[in-house]
């Protein structure tokens, strides 16, 4: 029997944290997530939105409507999901969302589920990764994560601070996890350095309410340009070596072309 506990302090104990529930509830009901206990963390996670610090409990809608945050983050929120999902979903939950890889979502016994095959590689991978895809070709779906990586955000949890990009990892044979968050670790907020200019561009199948085929976030910080991509790798992809190192699969090479066009535009917007 499932139990719901309301967290009253930062010591979560055992259980699965739930905030907006937009990822936890569907996964629970479709059998992707198994847990005995849900821990409602809404009352303990900060949710303020300021130019340099954003609570992990802020909803995407609150961030979208804030005039304070850098444009890349605001637009990433604006172009993410649907209005209802943005009103429900928290920043922290968005960063922790799972891939949209259909094989994973349909619970095929793939490597992320502990199996020994990535079905996308020989199957339908038009929407899948073009970087770091040799083990698992899933694409990270978060627009917001790409924006925050480009913005060089720092994540604070109840036990440590880390560069936001280090929250994410590419799954490997020995460790199939997609994030570095530890058991019971709770995200509190992200802080941002002063940003001179930023931009988020997104290619998707519909004008609204679709995950990115490719999302490109760019930021100029102290004269340096940082570019990060959504939808191109198993984690938000900080573009350090350009697009030439991409390793597209037979049916997603178009994503490289698409990413190149958006990166060019992002750079132009930041100039």
């Amino acid at each position, binding site marked *: 029997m499932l139990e719901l506990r309301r967290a009253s302090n930062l010591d979560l104990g055992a259980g699965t944290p739930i905030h907006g529930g937009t990822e936890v509830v569907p996964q629970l009901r479709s059998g992707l997530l198994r847990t005995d206990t849900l821990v409602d963390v809404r009352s303990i996670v900060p949710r303020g939105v300021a130019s340099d610090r954003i609570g992990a409990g802020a909803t995407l809608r609150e961030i979208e409507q804030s005039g304070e945050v850098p444009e890349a983050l605001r637009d990433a929120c604006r172009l993410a999901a649907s209005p209802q999902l943005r009103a429900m979903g928290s920043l922290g939950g968005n960063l922790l969302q799972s891939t949209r890889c*259909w094989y994973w979502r349909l619970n095929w016994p793939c490597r992320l589920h502990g199996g020994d095959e990535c079905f996308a590689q020989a199957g*339908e991978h038009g929407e899948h990764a073009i970087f770091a895809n040799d083990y698992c070709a899933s694409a990270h779906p978060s627009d917001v994560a790409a924006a925050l990586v480009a913005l060089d955000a720092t994540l604070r949890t109840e036990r440590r601070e880390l560069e936001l990009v280090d929250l994410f990892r590419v799954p490997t044979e020995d460790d199939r996890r997609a994030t570095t968050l530890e058991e019971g670790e709770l995200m509190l907020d992200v802080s941002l350095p002063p940003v001179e200019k930023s931009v988020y561009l997104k*290619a998707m*199948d519909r*004008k609204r*309410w679709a995950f990115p085929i490719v999302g490109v976030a760019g930021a100029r910080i102290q004269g340096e340009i940082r570019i990060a991509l959504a939808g191109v790798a198993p984690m938000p992809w900080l573009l350090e070596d350009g697009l030439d190192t991409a390793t597209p699969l037979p049916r997603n090479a*178009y994503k490289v072309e698409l990413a190149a066009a958006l990166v060019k535009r992002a750079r132009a917007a930041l100039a």
Partner: protein
Amino acid sequence: MARLIRTEKEVEGRYEEVWIVVEEDALEQWPAGPRRIVGQPAARIDGRERATGQAVYTADLALPGMLHTAVLRSPHPRARVTHLDLAPALALPGVHAAIGPGDIPQLVDECNYQGVAVAAVCADTLAEARAAVRAIDARFDVLEPLLDPDEAVARGHLLAEPRVRSRGDVERGFADADVVVEAEFRTQVVLHNSLETHQAIVEWVGDGVDVNISTQYIWGIRDGVAEGLGLPPDKVRVVCHYMGGGFGSKNSPDDYTFIAAELARRTQRAVKCALTRREEHTAAGNRNATIQRLRIGARSDGTLTAMSGEFVNAVGWGGWSSSTEGPMQMLYACPNVSTTTHGAKLNLPPMKAFRAPGFVEGTFGLEALLDELAAKLDIDPLELRRLNHADQDEVEGRAYSGKNLLECYRRAEAHWNRRHEVRSRSTDVVKRGVGMASQIWYGGGGPPSYAWVRVGSDGRAAVVTAMQDIGTGTRTAMAQIAAEELGIPLDHVTVSLGDSARGPYAAISAGSSTTPSMGPAVRAAAADARRQIDEIAEQRGTPDAPLAEIVALLEDAQILGKGARGPNPTGMQVLTFGVQVVEVAVDVETGEVTVERVAAVHDVGRVINPLGASSQIEGGIIQGIGHTLSEERLHDRVTGRLLTTTLESYRMPTIADVPEIVSELVDEPDPHLTNLGSKGLGEPPIVPIAAAIANAIRDATGADVRRLPISREEMLRALREAAAREKERVGAPARV
């Protein structure tokens, strides 16, 4: 005097001969043009019930003691059930009954497509039923599926013999051509995705059954259930007051109804069986994929000399091979046409009719290739279409009962003439262009169909007929027709429908047939009532007295009129026509296609409700935009298992994808068709949109898109191909 006649009946482009009983249909058509009520915009008479959530759909209905069902469906495209034990399911709390292969024909152990039903359980709650299905011990021997349509054709794995249709001498026609174009087009599988999933509630009452079901065809359900259960048809009562969309997929009872019926029989309770959204994506039908290898020849003056096509319908395991060749056969005057259509039988879920099946797909190929021809000939695409206009049906040499396609073209000119201005708004990155495509489709409806009209002493009338309103605004259109004929205000008419026990036989709501089938019957019934009232007025010596004054004398007496749909005109081809002009913007770096404006001009005879009609046009166009740009049901190429089973991975248009839509109807009654001259409009608007978008893309960019959906991948591929072609063309002289 009643007459029994033999007449032709067409549904979704398929003809059959039927016997019907008709009364004399002596009513003259009303003169063309809007009248007091017919032809005037009317808001839906049931709009408020639907908008406020008071309308009770099958999904909302909870009968006393009702049990819920979950179905075990094959997860494999081809497999044999080697072991099935229902006992673990039956042992769980709340479970009342479980059935498997052998219990009813709809449950099988030879599985030939993913989603075919294997077993089912009913329980007090849906959660209990689902838990029980998970507990069923089922083992499958997974077999190699046949997934490739071309391979199926090569192996002769077909639903039926190839359909060969030919006229003239195609060889000679191509030899006479100055220009020949050919190309291969592919269209994808798309899903109806009615927002109310397929579902039924069945309850045994006495020695019959009551079936509440979300359906497009109350009488088809009645007959199908009666046949399946071995009952006399009148022992089956079918009820559907409101239904949440069908688009062709809800014409028959299907597995869920028979599963509910059997579980209801065993438990003696009402049993609901409702598909989940994911089941809807596998087991509820689809528009099948097609491959079209087309060739068109023309003289340099634009006259078509020959057309040929090889069409492969990737049908799935069941359904039928729809008329993908229809537009090539029917749309233009061309003496030499030859088509072969194969229905590939694959280990994929069966197709079902989906809004102009075959013609949507076939028009994409034909009309896109016709524009490639226009470009080669350097003839204006609108001019080319006019040049090859068919003045009579070329397939069987029949006269059209009514055709105003040239008038549609004339009215489209204003939109077509915008193309220079539209193109001039292109930038280096965003190219704009305009494209058009013509529409041909059925939509004449047919007999039999019946209606009753009841007039009371309060001067109000009720239309009674056991039809269904699938969301097209049927209730409202029927009320308008009755009010017009009776000469009373629209809000004095109610329409009672949705129950086979409370009204006469009514037509299927498919094939754009509801208004042309039912409307004439309703008008005839109202006229019958009116005639009786007039006779009373005559007898009382007040022949000119208003209706209200006469019926006021009735007290509890009532005037009952009845009406029947007459036959279609003998030996004539009853069709709908139209043209759409589309403006697009293409981002040539990202492959993003934005449909900015669609102008639609259609000829469907007399318009009953211009407001509802414009909604049908908009809805068809928007569904077509989804088909053209973003929707695709994918299966894994290795296993054949379906991948896009959610509304996140299967992407239908949202409000943000909608262009400006301008619609216009010729509104000229078909002089030979019924007492109304009205044809259907449900399907015509979705027919030409894909080709018009593809042609606008070519106009904007020079790129030939040949595959639906026009995803980023397809658009960027077509742009690369066009760029390479251009480079070769420009580059060649440079080498000299």
